[in-house]
């Protein structure tokens, strides 16, 4: 439990998704998990062409439609209907995970319950329910070239989510590359967790208070760029 929680304003879901989308480079093939990751599709920087993969067998789909307006045979892995787009294609589940496991995804973005300082990920077992759903998370965590976790920095109760050692069931060990939270952007490196950006109004010291392992503050640590 982190003592003395700063009462500063945190980024909302939309802004976190926007920050995630800044990681997408031209031509990247990206898989977006359910929740905040999914919102990132709406914030691809202007002029960049990003190709979205969904594990239910589609590459290159368009925007999420308004509820009730889409084709039910054209959904992302979260079951939201998406738009047809030029270049899109469909494939079977084994092919979809040949893409995932085979290292053909540039970026996978998902949520988490906990991330350790070594980049271990715990995100499938709902802690309070002692049941969980692995789904595609393990394959994605093992297979993607770059794994970005987007989550609130702490639990509702103020507990650490960035921890020395995960105490929930692991999805995969040493797999996380970048953590984007509602107060910080942290890179997982061999030397440890490197704090690269902080939310407006937050200091590296504030972020450290809400983070169990010791953070290395990057020489050029700066405020999260949101535009």
């Amino acid at each position, binding site marked *: 439990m982190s003592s003395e929680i700063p009462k500063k304003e945190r980024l909302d879901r939309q802004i976190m998704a926007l920050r995630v989308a800044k990681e997408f480079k031209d031509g990247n093939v990206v898989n977006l998990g359910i929740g905040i990751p999914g919102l990132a599709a709406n914030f691809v920087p202007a002029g960049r062409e990003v190709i979205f993969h969904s*594990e239910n067998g589609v590459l290159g789909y368009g925007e999420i439609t308004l509820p009730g307006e889409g*084709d039910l045979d054209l959904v992302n892995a979260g079951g939201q209907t998406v738009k047809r787009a030029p270049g899109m294609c469909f494939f*079977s589940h084994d092919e979809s*995970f040949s893409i995932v496991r085979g290292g053909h995804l540039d970026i996978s973005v998902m949520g988490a319950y906990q991330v350790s300082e070594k980049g271990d990920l715990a995100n499938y077992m709902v802690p309070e*329910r002692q049941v969980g759903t*692995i789904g595609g998370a*393990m*394959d994605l965590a093992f297979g993607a070239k770059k794994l970005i976790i987007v989550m609130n920095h702490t639990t509702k109760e103020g507990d650490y989510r960035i921890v020395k050692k995960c105490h929930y069931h692991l999805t995969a060990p040493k797999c996380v590359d970048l953590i984007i939270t509602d107060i910080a952007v942290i890179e997982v490196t061999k030397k440890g967790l490197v704090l690269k950006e902080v939310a407006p109004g937050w200091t590296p010291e504030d972020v450290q208070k809400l983070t169990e392992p010791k953070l290395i503050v990057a020489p050029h640590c700066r405020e999260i760029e949101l535009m």
Partner: protein
Amino acid sequence: MPVNKIVASFDEAVADIQDGAVIMVGGFGTVVSMPSCLLEALDRKGVKNLTTVSNSSGFGADVWRMQGAKFPEDMDILVRNGRIKKAIVSAPVSAMYVNNFEKLLRAGKVEIEMVPQGTLAERVRAAKAGIGGFYVPVGIGTVIEEGKEKKVIDGREYLLELPIKADFALIHAYKGDRWGNLIYRGTSRTFNPTMAGAARVTIAEVDEIVELGELDPEAIVTPGVYVDRVVARPRECPAP
């Protein structure tokens, strides 16, 4: 005699599925990707002690009826009617709400083998392709590795995964012909072509049966050799 894999009714299509059978069920999460009418027929038949192989464990027909689904049954029909002894599944529960499967699980009334989704797809494919087993990195350092053989190949650690062999595969496709050639529609492809041919008997529920030769040979996804029976959904809504 011309080859004719078309059967007249869903009840006939599942008539030889017995208690204790291992059943693959295609589709992903949304009901439109699933063999709803086959699941209904199987439930009607009253089989027990099934081992099921599927991506998810169902949301229940009510959820899908609210969304206007014409054929609303998913895995939940087998779950809520107590037909499943063991589920081999990737996404058994929902983060959003407590489904019937979770209730059975908590009550100790169903066994579960949870499998990472890609490994599930590959294990099903292995059964179809005559692969005796295969190594994947997925699951190393997690609960998935428990009881499995590990092997270092080319400097990386892998787990041995085995094929999932089944008696029947129930799948859903968009169109099919009398040889069993199938095409799908959009993201409702998912596990359906993966499971086609992976069981001893593959039964395909299709939206439409077409004449042999109508399907574009370049666009057929499942070659008929993998399919044993084809049965068409009714054009009109069944009575509720």
